[in-house]
């Protein structure tokens, strides 16, 4: 499905993989995560094969993928449990820190996923991804099912997380506005290849006013054209 694909992601950057359904963007993300093995080619992080460096990655799924029988607190703690992190103090402070970053109030920490809204579930999912302090966040259309208002709020949350922690992010989306708002570069994908790599001209920090600026609309149009061009 993926063919002749080469992508270098500089440390601390957000790169969006943009393209229509079935173009291979989610597959690429899964290959990067080591969840789908590549028949040919390699994925390396600082020169190290991804299979050796998986602990430096975290994946945010399209659905929040919270374990429904666990509370938010227990869901976010899960990676620590699997990695046999024993220090209770470290775990508690990391959990509180991550839940605060994503905007969880303490009285929501012990709720089960079914008691949360879609946006809250996704916040918990992001907190779970952050808990192990990964260098690289891989996000597979995490906000696709959310309404526009919630989507833009969570976009701001992601920008804040990157600004505070200098994490690298690979972000899969089919939403042009989201890709432009979030990323430094947009890899436009078509039929399993990267058709074009577009640099986004806006500087950080970005705020929601940028969305209504004329230059944002103009650049949106440019990306949109590139996307249609790639499909021809």
């Amino acid at each position, binding site marked *: 499905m993926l063919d002749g694909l080469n992508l270098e992601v500089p440390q601390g950057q957000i790169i969006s993989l943009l393209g229509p359904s079935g173009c291979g963007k989610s597959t690429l993300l*899964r290959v990067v995560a080591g969840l789908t093995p590549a028949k040919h080619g390699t994925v390396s992080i600082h020169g190290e094969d991804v299979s050796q460096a998986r602990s430096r990655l975290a994946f945010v799924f*399209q659905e929040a993928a919270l374990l*429904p029988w666990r509370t938010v607190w227990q869901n976010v703690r*899960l990676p620590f449990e*699997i990695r046999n992190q024993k220090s209770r103090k470290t775990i508690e402070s990391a959990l509180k820190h991550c839940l605060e970053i994503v905007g969880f109030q303490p009285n929501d920490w012990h709720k*089960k996923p*079914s008691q949360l809204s879609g946006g809250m579930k996704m916040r918990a999912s992001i907190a779970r991804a952050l808990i192990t302090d990964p260098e690289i966040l891989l996000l597979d259309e995490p906000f696709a099912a959310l309404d526009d208002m919630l989507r833009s709020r969570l976009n701001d949350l992601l920008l804040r997380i990157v600004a505070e922690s200098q994490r690298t992010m690979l972000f899969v989306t089919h939403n042009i506005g989201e890709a432009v708002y979030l990323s430094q570069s947009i890899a436009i994908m078509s039929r399993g290849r990267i058709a074009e790599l577009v640099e986004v001209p806006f500087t950080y920090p970005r705020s929601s006013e940028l969305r209504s600026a004329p230059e944002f609309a103009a650049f949106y149009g440019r990306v949109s054209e590139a996307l249609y061009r790639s499909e021809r």
Partner: protein
Amino acid sequence: MAEIDSHRNASVRGARLAVIAAPILVFIIFALSWHALVVLFKIPAVILPKPLDVLTSMWTQRWELLRASWVTLQAALLGLAASALIGSVIAVLFSQSRWIRTAFYPYVIFLQTVPIVAIAPLLMIWSGPGLRAVVLVSCIISIFPIISNVTSGLLSIDQNHLDLFRMQEASRWQTLVKLRIPSAIPGLVLGLRVSCGLAVIGAIVGELFVASSGAYDGLGMVMMAKQANLKIADLMGTILASTCLGILLFVAVQFLGSVVLRRWTKDAGFEST
């Protein structure tokens, strides 16, 4: 708005009442037809007693029936517990290897299809005529729904959840304990709902074979004694008692299951049906 609410409440109350009233109505119609049939065709009591005679006989032998029901209930509960435990362990083994599943699943189906009446005498010989044999028959009859539902719960895991565990490099054991087993709890509850009735049937079938030894006095033994003495009203009363026992166990498991599912599955985002 208040009017709509009161209408809705009234219709909910009506629906609840219907759930109780409808089966009672059916029972009354059935009993009346039965009575009419016996009177109309002058059927002798030794062939088919009147429904009232059956109820009277149940009342007369109430202590004997209660004691026998208690013995049968213990055997059925032990059989159900054994099938829940053994069935879950088998399901866990099945979930761990496709090879084990392929090799052993036909034998599990054998448990479902084997005529238990045919092998019960063998079980009596192997395990001795007593509680152990009755529990064994009850367990064999009720284990299949547990194995089938729990295996299905252990294997039907959300791909995202599996990927989440793979990303964390979880061991097979961690994936089993922290993901597969909790996901299979609703399957276990559903399996128990089906199996509880079967466990009672199994216990009574077992008792029918144990009865001849005199080492045991459950409902099955009472049935054999009544049949031998041609006390048909008493026999039918005993059959009714065993049916009530099955219903009682079913209602209890249904209630406990819905409590567990409400805590585990409804809160957990599954539908508890």
